[in-house]
């Protein structure tokens, strides 16, 4: 099917919506211009409705033929909760993109992917592209517990080896992703590059684990972002002692040069407002999201 990338007809319609866990949903959205242009590492900015926040989300998949892009959203605050309450056939009011700088796909040899929580979804297209480029792909998937673990099967299909870790041992091995990484190194696995996407604290320790081995390591940073077009500087991160804009220069940066502590402080900027906003929303929509 040939799509008119300049047409607004049907734009941002949710063609398919699937709940992967009580808080994580997959949305397939009609956006042919983005679908035609998407590469691994690109993200989009979503708005649920007028008055809604601009929420950056990394693309999980895209289909230029169907004119669709796929995102996986974890309901954390009000906006993401609202998005995950959407049903097939409803519309996002805005989907902007693709944004950011895609990841360079090349032959490294052995590539290690480390995804935590919903970050596994964002790791998926990158791991898949490396596999397609002829790399050996080892994926470590970390989650708090079994019911929050997503895309295990899909990752298995594109990885040479998948290791699952959960905090409570309800799936895979009990422990942290870094435990699994240490075992790989200890077993003599030669890792040529590592990619990590997940909670900041996890990415920081992934970087510390690969550092002594000199493994080139890249982390997908998730700062507070507003316009996503390089205009506001709110998403600035410190990489190699220099300010960089995650929205246009990233979101993937050299993890060994990233100041994760600063990133953690800056992402906490609106925590109070976000919590009160979610609380208000939950009060008004008690039955729908089951937070009470």
């Amino acid at each position, binding site marked *: 099917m040939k799509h008119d*990338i*300049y047409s*607004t007809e049907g734009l941002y319609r949710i063609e398919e919506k699937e709940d992967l866990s009580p808080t994580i949903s997959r949305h397939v959205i009609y956006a042919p*211009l*983005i679908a035609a*242009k998407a590469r691994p590492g690109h993200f989009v*900015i979503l*708005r649920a409705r007028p*008055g*809604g*926040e*601009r929420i950056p989300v990394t693309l999980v998949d895209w289909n230029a033929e169907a004119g669709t892009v796929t995102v996986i959203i974890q309901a954390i605050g*009000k*906006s993401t909760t609202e998005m995950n309450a959407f049903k097939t056939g409803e519309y996002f*009011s*805005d*989907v*902007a*993109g*693709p*944004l*950011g700088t895609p990841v360079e796909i090349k032959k490294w040899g052995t590539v290690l992917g480390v995804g935590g929580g919903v970050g596994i979804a964002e790791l998926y297209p990158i791991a898949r592209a490396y596999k397609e480029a002829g790399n050996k792909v080892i994926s470590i998937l970390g989650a708090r517990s079994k019911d929050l673990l997503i895309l295990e099967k899909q990752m298995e299909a594109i990885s040479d080896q998948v290791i699952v870790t959960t905090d409570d041992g309800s799936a895979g091995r009990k422990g942290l992703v870094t435990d699994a990484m240490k075992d790989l190194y200890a077993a003599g696995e030669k890792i040529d590059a590592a990619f990590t996407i997940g909670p900041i604290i996890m990415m920081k320790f992934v970087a510390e684990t690969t550092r002594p081995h000199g493994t080139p390591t890249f982390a997908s940073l998730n700062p507070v972002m*507003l*316009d996503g*077009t*390089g*205009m*506001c*500087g*709110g998403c*600035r991160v*410190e990489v190699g002692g220099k*300010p960089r804009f995650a929205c*246009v220069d990233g979101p993937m940066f050299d993890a060994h040069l990233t100041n994760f502590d*600063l990133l953690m*402080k*800056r992402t*906490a*900027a*609106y925590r109070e*407002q*976000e919590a*009160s*906003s979610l609380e*208000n929303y939950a009060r008004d929509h008690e039955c729908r999201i089951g937070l009470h």
Partner: protein
Amino acid sequence: MENKPKKPTPSIKQNHGRHQDPVARRSNFDEVALGFGLEEAVTEAARCLNCKNKPCELACPVNVRIPEFVDLVHKEDLGAAASKIFETSLFPAICGRVCPQETYCEAACVLKDRFGPVSIGRLERFTADYARKNGLIKPPACAPDTGRKVACVGSGPTSLAVAAELRKLGHAVTVFEALHEFGGVLSYGIPTFRLPREVVRFEVDMLRKMGVRLLKNVMVGKSITIDELKKDFDVIYIGSGAGLPTPMNAPGEDLVGVYSSNEFLTRVNLMEAYKFPAVDTPYYVGKRVVVVGGGNTAMDSARCAMRLKPERVTLLYRRTRAEMPARGEEVENAMEEGIKFEFLTAPVELEGDEKGRLKRVKCVRMELGAPDASGRRRPVPQKGSEFYIEADSLVVAIGQSPNPVIQQTTAGLSVNKWGGIITEEATGKTSLDGIYAGGDVVRGGATVLLAMKDGKAAARAIHEKLSAKVN
């Protein structure tokens, strides 16, 4: 319409229009200038001498037919007055509000020195508002379709001007906007109390009615490149603006609570964070706000901050009031609203708490030394004058430079050392065939009116090029 004989009454005192009370307006985002009622407008219009040589019109960046429209206001034919303005500018409600008329038409008015100029800006604004509210505005007729396609990158004032002119001439125009609202700086930058959003939306909507295609959420340079657009369009006009914030490069700039003016204004204006939690985008100013800078963006930032009801807003400027680049009217408005001005003061370091939140600003007093390259006296720090200002938030409003993304992703596009696209001034032609540029992406941070002027000039050149191809 009754045709009143016109007797100019120039000696009546210039009417500057009414304003919202400074104390009341400090706690709302409603428009500060209230302008004229019909009677006031007609009286003010009667002051115009209808000079034959039209100095006001010649001084106008977009050549509004000033004496003619003012005469029609005097005759109380507001629909005709609006149509008269439309002949050269489709955006009178915007220009009537944000144009610094005191440096253009009103500076050229022959009444200026004796009685004060005719309040042309207020009359333009009144005409546009009255015509809009009374359904008197008719979108201008467009020439038959030429089959030629033009893409405008960005939907700020320069692109809007190009789109309007070229659509009128029958070309198919598509406007690409990266954000979810059209208008560029008119939407994300200029506060609603200077430019209400319904005004921007109405004038943008008129383009839509004329058949201009407006596409949001497309960031040219990322979503689609100039080279890709070239396959589908005959001409591309780049009006991507000056959206790159200038950092202070002072220690502590990464503390939470420190904003670029772009982020702060985008949060408050585009995302309407001042309505939080009724809208979802939050803001944080705390009790004490510091704004750094002396231009219009600094005034807008300080005045937005004041409306978020902190205990105080302090503006730091390293020179004196005389050197401030901001419009005099905006500085006065800010002062009336209770913003504290610290002249000859510069921040040197920002200090935070253990959570990385801003706590206080280390400042230094300046004095004016010898003139620098710009001809202005250079501020130099006074030894031993360091002092602290307590602050929960700080807005850096010391300038913007051109958005770099298109320049970085378009091979062969010549760029100057400030990142601005190099163009031929009279036509907006860039180093690449069929690609034109204008507004802030060329000039750096300039004004809405110069951006529109660039757009009109480029539209003329583009039309010439497209017509030549057809024949």
